[in-house]
Every structure is written in C-alpha cells, then in structure tokens.
C-alpha cells in the first residue's frame, strides 16, 4: 500500500500529482501487480481533498491500464512499469551528465540550465501532442 502526499507549491494539479505518484511507485517497483491502492475514502480522509480529484486520478490510471477497480473489493494494480526501459536509465543518465557539464562550461548557471531544459522539454512534449 502506498501513501499519497500533495505538494501545494508544485504547480501540478492535485489529481495529476496522484497519478504521477502511482506511476512513480510502479516504476521504482514500490507498487507491484496485485497490490491494492488506498480506497477513495482513505485518500480523501488522509489528504483532506475532494473525492472527485481521487476518482479522476484513478479513472486515468485505469484508462492507462495500470489499475483496475473490483467493485466492493478495492482498486488493484494490474500492470508494472519496471520494464526494459530501466536498463536504458544508466546510459541516458551518463549522456545527461555530459550535457550538463557542457552547459556549465558554456557559462550557464543552475537556473539557466533548468530553464533551458524545462522549455525544451515542454515544447517537445507539446509537439508530440500536436
């Protein structure tokens, strides 16, 4: 069982934070196939949030095929995300480290690096959607 938390200053909507936390736990193997998620009532009571926020997050995860609700029993994990991509993390991290070193040599400070990364990340994400 995982416990959700919310970051009020992240700028990410609460429902998306819940979705991301489940995906994250799946990626790290904290949640595995067959594990039960907290009930809507439990999440609502724990975080003092609107029930529709939790329902929306669970619906999205269900839509992605990651979880399934069994009426009267609970919501369970039905897939795993610790797939082959985990093996690719190492080399990708190395490349990123090289890129970061390059950016620093070019005179970018932490903030500039973050800004450059985030804008590029967002534009390519938007292009992917479009």
């Amino acid at each position, binding site marked *: 069982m995982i416990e959700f938390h919310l970051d009020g200053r992240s700028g990410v909507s609460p429902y998306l934070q819940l979705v991301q936390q489940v995906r994250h736990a799946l990626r790290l193997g904290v949640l595995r196939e067959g594990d039960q998620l907290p009930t809507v*009532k439990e999440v609502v009571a*724990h975080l003092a949030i609107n*029930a529709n926020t939790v329902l929306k997050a669970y619906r999205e995860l269900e839509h992605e095929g990651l979880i399934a609700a069994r009426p009267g029993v609970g919501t369970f994990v039905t897939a795993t995300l610790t797939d082959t991509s985990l093996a690719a993390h190492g080399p990708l991290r190395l490349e990123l480290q090289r890129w970061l070193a390059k950016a620093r040599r070019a005179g970018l400070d932490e903030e500039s690096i973050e800004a450059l990364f985030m804008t590029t990340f967002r534009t390519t994400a938007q292009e992917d959607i479009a």
Partner: protein
Amino acid sequence: MTSSVLEAQGLGKKYGKRWALRECTIDIPAGHVVGLVGPNGAGKTTLLKLASGQLEPTAGSITVLGGRPAGGPAQLARVGFVAQGTPVYAGLSIADHLRLGARLNPRWDDARARERIAQLGLTFDRRAGKLSGGQRAQVALTLGLAKRPELLILDEPVASLDPLARREFLRGLMEATVEHQLSVVLSSHLVSDLERTCDYLIVLVDSRVQVAGEVDKLLATHHRLTGPRRDADRLPADQHVISASHTDRQSTFVVRTDAPIHDPAWTVTQLGMEDLVLAYMDKSTAECRRAALEMQR
C-alpha cells in the same frame, strides 16, 4: 445527479438602501463541494442565509434542492446549516446537544453522531463551552452531519481555526461527502482552504457573482498572457479580459476563452485557483466585465 442543489434567478437582497447581493443568477448541479469565495463583506453570508431560508429575497428567486428555502418541515430536514463561528450552546454538554438534535430533526442519525464524537476523542459529558475552537467546530459539523441533510451549508467554518484544526475539520467534511453523498456549499475568504476541497467555485465580489463553474473547467479556460504592451481592445473578440495590468513595455492579461491561444507574441501560463480568484477581484476591470456579461445576455 443532474438536478440542481441551488438555483437562483436575478436574486438580490437589500439591507436598507444597500444591496448586499444583487443580480445573482447561478445553477449549481448536485454532487459538488462548492466553494464560495470573496472578500469580507462581499455578500457570502447573505447568499448562504438566503439559501437556508433565514433571509427572504428582496428581488428574484431561489430554489434549493428544487424547493423553497425553509418552505416547510420536509425542506428544513434536507438542508443543514453550520453558521459562522460554528456556534454551540456553551452551557450544554455534548450529550445535551445530541438530544436536542434528535428532538429537532426527523432524520436524526444518533448512532452516527455518537460514533463521530467518540472518534474525535471527546466525552459526552463535556460542556460545549469548555471545548477548543477546533473541537467546537467538529461538534457543530457532527450535528450538521447527523441531521443527514442532502445539502450541507457552512459559513466560514474554518476561518478561526489554527492550521491543524482546519485540516482536521476539512478531512472530516471531505470524508463525509464520500460516505453519505451529500452536496456541500462552504464559504471562505481564504482560497487556500478551498483549493483542494472544492470542485466548484463561486467568486463573489462587491455583492455580485463574478464567476461560477466547475474548477477544472475554469482552470482550463483561463490563461495569463504576458507580452509586449497592447491595449485590451486589440485582443480577439473571444478572449474576455478578466484582469489587465501594464508597464510601459509589457502587458499582462488574464483572459477567459474556450479557444486555444496561438498568438506567438504571448507567453501563456496556466492559472492556479488563487490567481484566478485574485484576477476576478481586480476592480479596475470589474466594470468592463459586467458590461461584457450584459451584452452576452
């Protein structure tokens, strides 16, 4: 679930010569936790008292759960009201409060009330006057829930509570909405109280409803535009200006639009609930917004 919990048509209330609420037209579907937000004196309490039948409208009409507010015993039983400051009878014990609740409310759920009091770690012989602010609020909420209303109205329920008590109160309230499928309307002058708890928002400023709608939809249709200085009347017709500010070189607008914004001159950012409410409190554009709203009608 498509029925209305609260429907108002041109609703207004006048105290002497002053309109506390005017031209209020809203239609709130059931099954929501509705946040009513606005500065002190905006008319929040007036609207809530009209909805619970403690006040009679000066103009227009209001129906709650399809009936006239306080229109009879059946209607009274369907609506719970927790007044500002969560008042209790200081001289009475918690047990006395429950007995009183059982006498006055035909649908009273005594088991539920007792269970909740026990969960809060309170004893029944405690005098209400000896409770802390947070405990008193919880007792008032317990009474409101034990009545088993379809709609629970709360006027600034957490305004005087410390952060921990505030959170505990909202947890209890949110849990109750899941358990008993009730609709809730709560007011606050602090957006942070409503940010996580409400999925429907009404912004009330200067005795008028500035905007009302589902939070998700409101956040999806409002954007902040930042770019080179430009006058508001040179924005596309489908972008309704909510607030505007200018420096000699730069303009910042909050606009409402259903269409995507393609103009490359603008940096477009998403708004949080707090930014959205603040934009509607911008007095400099309030008059223009009203004119635009009247043209739409």
